[in-house]
């Protein structure tokens, strides 16, 4: 029933503007893949291409054995959940859920039975005779979910389904979405701009930028081993230092910034380090110490902000602006000269741009 989705070399245009370039993506059977990116990155365009609301300039989209590329949208058999729920305002909750079954020529009693069972599963059986206008946002989204699931589609797609809900409900709903998707084993494509949301429920996440997938990996890999500067920045590596190696001593490598400042790194902790590389670190990945003998980068501190678990400093090392965290035990003042020590667990080595 559930099918793998394969998108191959899709290019798409809006008028003369190219919005997707040679995009390929496959979602395995039962897998949930998120498309994550800022608005305009092409994630919604990708979803609309798969849904059939847009036509690609070139490339193919297949769902299991079925080639979707030129198939009309209403023949694609995809369960779609919209950002604004898109419930039919003139139909009751039950009629909304039964709508897809009606198109599939299910008889009246069978329709009713399946719609009621599905409403039961999302916990809305008691609201079956209400109109959508009488429901809260969370309830509407449950109805939308039930309406998409009841047709037992081989593919489920979500277009920012939680962005109109408040924070607490968002977390509850994403767990619920994940549970239902898992339980049915339905292949799913999920579009969001919310990193936490994407990482928390996805098997894999595609980080998109300017119509291209920058990296497609499990959330764990994306978070710890970003493949390039864009992804590193996107997942919260605030500092990006261009370095070149000046000396190697066993596992220890001495590297130099553009300004000539030196820092020592260990290949035991960071993996192989090429001669020229980018060091990406989170704020936690640059520890502030006042010990002048510590290996690292000499910097002058700027503004200090309080994070609760640490102090955060805007620091300057030569011309480089960096963000680093220091311990709560020792608040340092603006202008202090310190050493920023890279913490290998919060660092990643990237190829130079």
């Amino acid at each position, binding site marked *: 029933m559930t099918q793998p989705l394969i998108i191959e070399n899709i290019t798409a245009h809006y008028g003369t503007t190219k919005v997707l370039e040679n995009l390929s993506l496959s979602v395995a059977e039962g897998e949930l893949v998120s498309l994550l990116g800022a608005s305009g990155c092409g994630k919604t365009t990708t979803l609309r291409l798969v849904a*059939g609301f847009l036509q690609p300039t070139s490339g193919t989209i297949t769902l299991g054995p079925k080639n979707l590329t030129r198939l009309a949208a209403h023949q694609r058999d995809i369960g*779609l959940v919209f950002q604004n729920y898109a419930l039919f305002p003139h139909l009751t909750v039950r009629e909304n859920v039964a709508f897809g079954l009606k198109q599939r020529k299910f008889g009246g009693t069978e329709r009713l039975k399946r719609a009621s069972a599905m409403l039961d599963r999302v916990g809305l059986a008691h609201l079956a005779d209400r109109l959508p206008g009488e429901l809260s946002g969370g309830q509407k989204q449950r109805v939308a979910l039930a309406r998409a699931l009841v047709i037992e589609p081989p593919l489920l797609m979500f277009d920012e389904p939680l962005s109109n809900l408040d924070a607490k409900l968002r977390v509850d709903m994403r767990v619920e979405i994940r549970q239902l998707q898992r339980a049915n084993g339905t292949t799913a494509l999920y579009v969001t701009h919310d990193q936490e949301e994407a990482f928390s429920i996805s098997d894999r996440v595609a980080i998109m930028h300017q119509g291209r997938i920058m990296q497609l990996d499990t959330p764990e890999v994306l978070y710890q081993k970003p493949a390039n500067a864009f992804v590193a920045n996107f997942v919260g590596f605030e500092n990006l230092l261009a370095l070149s190696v000046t000396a190697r001593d066993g596992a220890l490598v001495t590297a130099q910034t553009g300004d000539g400042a030196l820092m020592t790194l260990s290949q035991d902790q960071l993996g192989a380090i090429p001669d020229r590389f980018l060091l990406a670190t989170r704020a936690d990945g640059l520890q502030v110490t006042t010990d002048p003998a510590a290996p690292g980068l000499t910097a002058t501190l700027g503004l200090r902000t309080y994070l609760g678990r640490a102090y955060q400093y805007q620091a300057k090392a030569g011309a480089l602006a960096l963000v680093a965290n220091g311990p709560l035990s020792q608040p340092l003042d603006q202008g202090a000269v310190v050493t920023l020590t890279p913490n290998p667990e919060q660092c990643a080595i990237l190829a130079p741009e």
Partner: protein
Amino acid sequence: MSTRIHPVLIFFTVLIYIFLLGPLVIIFGAALSDTTYLTFPPQGLTLRWFENIWNISAFRRTIVTSLQMAFLGTFIALIIGIPAAYALNRHRVTLPASLSTLFVLPILVPEIVIGFSLLRSVTVEAGVPVWYALLIGHTLLVLPYVIRVVSASLASFDFSIEEAAISLGSPPAKTFFTIVLPNIRSGMIAAFILSFITSINDVSISLFLTGPGISTLPIQLLAHMEQFFDPTIASVSVVLMLLTILVMVIVERTLGLAIVAK
């Protein structure tokens, strides 16, 4: 909590109502006057001027023609206007903005100009029979209203529900009838009422397009006035007024006017 209404507000409200309804009361009174000339307040009470409408065959015929034009013209305008309004709103981003202006242009051009150009083109050049020319004229007259009002309704229509229906397996054409139309019902009803009233009360376009043996009620009213100045004119006006109210009541009873106000 009781809200006290300021006396000045009451004064102006009453004044405006007198201004709006006064003439209608006078017409109504004059229609009942037992005199052979128009007068108010009525001297004596009679319904014979209403009977007179029925006795004058021209009035009988023109009432029928007026109703035909109002119903048929509005109906045709709805059939053309709803899909047009739909297309204009659905493809708002890709269509040039000037296109929607083009569709409401007939409202901006003086009706008398439209009437004259229709006479020149449809009646004189194309030789279309009077009844059909009149129908074309009335359809054109109300079409911009239909497009405007239905567009207003579609502007608040969420087109993603149409996509939702399509994704659930409903073909686009079917979706238009099962999903789009039910959700712009209020706009369609409002468009119907507005068009009907505009059509049945129209003078300027009908003036040019009526011909031998075929006329509308307002035009017949004018013709009658040129020869007689009796209370029949007032009673016809009352009939026009009642026809309009009747349509409103029927719509209210069957479809619910509350929807229109929404």
